[in-house]
């Protein structure tokens, strides 16, 4: 085993952290939470110039062909910085789905644009009952000559309000088996029949309700094969889940560092509060859980990068990140006291994200259920 990053990964980590320290101050994070668009266009362009948007896109499509593990390193830093904007939806949800399911023509057309920051994408997956399993997909697509007509509602679609294209998972056949008969469609988000409403959220991240009211999409815009979209989604969801975990461990690490700094400086009863056993135990528990979440996330990411089966490890990583990031942020509040409870303190940014991300791609109970099923109990 090897628990260290490669030299290149360490370099990526450092340059990412430095870049975000300059380009993504907390002031910007707060502004963007209230902004309708949610991210500054200049920053998006800079992110494209430093190669982040094309990081995992193969060189033949204008990217740098780095592995999924490098993306995890990058996302960890983004989570640390609370980076706002559509990176996750475009690169992780959109990019990975295109890579996994797109035809050569589709990739050639879209991936270079994506890498250059000219194309925003997202995945319209969940619906009002918000399930990350195949039975959650009830939106219907009906064939009409060479086109398909989509009818249904997608909810909690990230960044749909700015996306150029939506990848919509819809049911094209009823077989009684939920995993069968799902098809992925690539839709121009300005197509008639598509209506997007921005939701108001605790984090101020941009999530949308997207309704498809007889929205027409040409048959050539199917990603992968008709009725065979779920296996593609399964692969994308495994990676997306780990990608979210990476953001969460980045956030958790930042929270721990902030907390330890504060515990060393803050004096009460004539000594730094970090010298009290109660505070030390909280901090020790936070570090233990940061390590725990990191290792299981890295193991899952490594397995996915190597092409090894990772269902179990992915579920473990998200079950842990869901619970522990929230607990870590909660302990941090206990240590920070009143100052951390103020809106203009940085800690609430993380406390809110911990809660919002707890549910995304399934909460701990959902993933524990997967672990149990996989273990045959």
């Amino acid at each position: 085993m090897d628990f260290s990053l490669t030299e290149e990964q360490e370099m990526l980590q450092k340059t990412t952290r430095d870049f975000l320290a300059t380009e993504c101050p907390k002031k910007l994070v707060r502004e963007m939470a209230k902004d309708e668009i949610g991210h500054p266009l200049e920053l998006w362009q800079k992110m494209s110039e430093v190669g982040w948007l094309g990081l995992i896109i193969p060189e033949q499509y204008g990217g740098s062909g780095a592995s999924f593990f490098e993306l995890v390193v990058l996302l960890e830093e983004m989570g640390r910085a609370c980076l706002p904007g559509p990176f996750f939806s475009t690169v992780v949800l959109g990019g990975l789905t295109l890579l996994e399911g797109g035809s050569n023509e589709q990739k050639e057309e879209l991936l270079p644009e994506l890498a250059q920051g000219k194309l925003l994408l997202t995945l319209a997956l969940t619906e009002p009952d918000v399930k990350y399993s195949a039975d959650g997909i009830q939106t219907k697509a009906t064939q009409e000559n060479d086109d398909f007509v989509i009818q249904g509602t997608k909810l909690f679609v990230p960044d749909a309000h700015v996306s150029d294209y939506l990848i919509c998972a819809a049911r094209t056949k009823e077989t009684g088996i939920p995993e069968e008969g799902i098809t992925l469609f690539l839709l121009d988000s300005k197509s008639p029949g598509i209506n997007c409403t921005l939701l108001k959220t605790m984090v101020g991240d941009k999530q949308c309700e997207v309704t498809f009211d007889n929205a027409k999409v040409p048959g050539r815009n199917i990603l992968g094969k008709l009725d065979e979209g779920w296996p593609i989604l399964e692969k994308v969801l495994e990676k997306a889940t780990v990608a979210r975990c990476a953001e969460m461990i980045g956030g958790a690490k930042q929270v721990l560092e902030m907390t330890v700094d504060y515990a060393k400086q803050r004096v009460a009863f004539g000594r730094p509060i970090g010298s009290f056993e109660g505070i030390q135990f909280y901090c020790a528990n936070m570090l233990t859980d940061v390590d725990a979440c990191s290792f299981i996330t890295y193991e899952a990411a490594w397995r996915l990068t190597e092409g090894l089966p990772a269902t179990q490890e992915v579920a473990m990583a998200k079950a842990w990140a869901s619970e522990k990031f929230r607990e870590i942020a909660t302990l941090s509040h206990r240590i920070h006291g009143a100052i951390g409870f103020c809106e203009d303190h940085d800690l609430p940014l993380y406390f809110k994200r911990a809660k919002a991300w707890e549910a995304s791609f399934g909460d701990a109970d959902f993933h524990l259920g997967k672990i149990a099923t996989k273990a045959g109990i």
Partner: protein
Amino acid sequence: MNFAFTQEQEAFRSEVRKFIQREFSPEQSVKYKDFFSMLGGGVEQRNFKQEMSRKLGAKGWLSLAWPKEYGGRDSPSLQHILVEELAYYKCPGWDGVGVGMLAPMLLKSGNEEQKKRFLTPIARGEGSWCELLSERDAGSDLASLQTSAVEDGDYFVLNGQKCWSSGAHEADWGFILVRTDPEAVPKHRGLSFFLLDMKTPGISMTPIVNMAGEPEFNEVFFDDVRVPKENLVGDKNRGWYVIMGVLDFERSVFPVHAIARRKLDDFIEHVRKTKPLDPVTRNRIAELIAECEIARLIHHRVVWMQDKGIVPNYESSIDKLYGTELNVKVTAMVARALGHYGALTEGSRLAPLNGHVPYLYLRAIGDVIAMGSSEIERGVVAQRGLGLPRG
């Protein structure tokens, strides 16, 4: 990063598994409750353990982590793989005190004569060791211990008493930390470390039965016990450093994640054969499957550091507390899920899992206390891992 074992490591693991299959039959295995329950099994089990030790020694497996010049393979990871397998299969023969703790101390702090004299039998699996550290009033605050040693010609003369000495009644040798300077400030600068033949006149002991019913511990009394000076390891009054020098390794001596995983797997096998699980218990099991995997990674981070020659710091404290607390969680979950049946002991007609559940539940508490309580370990994590100031 890389979470795979090397081919050499994988090959070694399967060699160990074959060895265990050959030497430790399922009929024998049933008699053992836990890798930790190696004490108090009577003469038959004691003899078998010694026989297994010699077999492990003959394979060269008791010195895997030692430098090549002392007959080792310079591979901490192979040692950890060996113990992981023995622990999972509850296979006796590995002396955690002699092989796990004393050998690294001798390698680091012993003189050549001591290494020659004591390492060879340890590597062969001959003789067994106990540790004589804690006292009634000196546990977590070990440096406040009072058992004394006074120089007298070629000897040191020991007086006092030690407590919680696991397996002292079965041990041929012990290592002991005693006070040689009663005036020393701070207290830990007045301690010395000796190797002690347990047959030396003046040593007596009374057994202490743990709450799981095992005669695990002893109170050991020293009445003018004469220890030859050549048995002093390190310098006089520098005994604290003999122990502390390897403590960061010792905290990871036991792969508790494998011990916990075994109990979880036994329970999973049991529930597969019985009634369908309620969703709450199902999730609790799933949570512990994940936690066992995480504990395995936390343990192997330390192993990786040792293989690379990096001295573990707070990492081994996390390993120790995480593994032992997981073991408590697993045994508590099993006992809870089995309800009244979980309180039935060996010999009860209706007892599930051979009636071992009460024992395992009770025994698990001991390890969050022994060898550095979780509270002490959390202090290490906070102060050494995070740089928080001492209180």
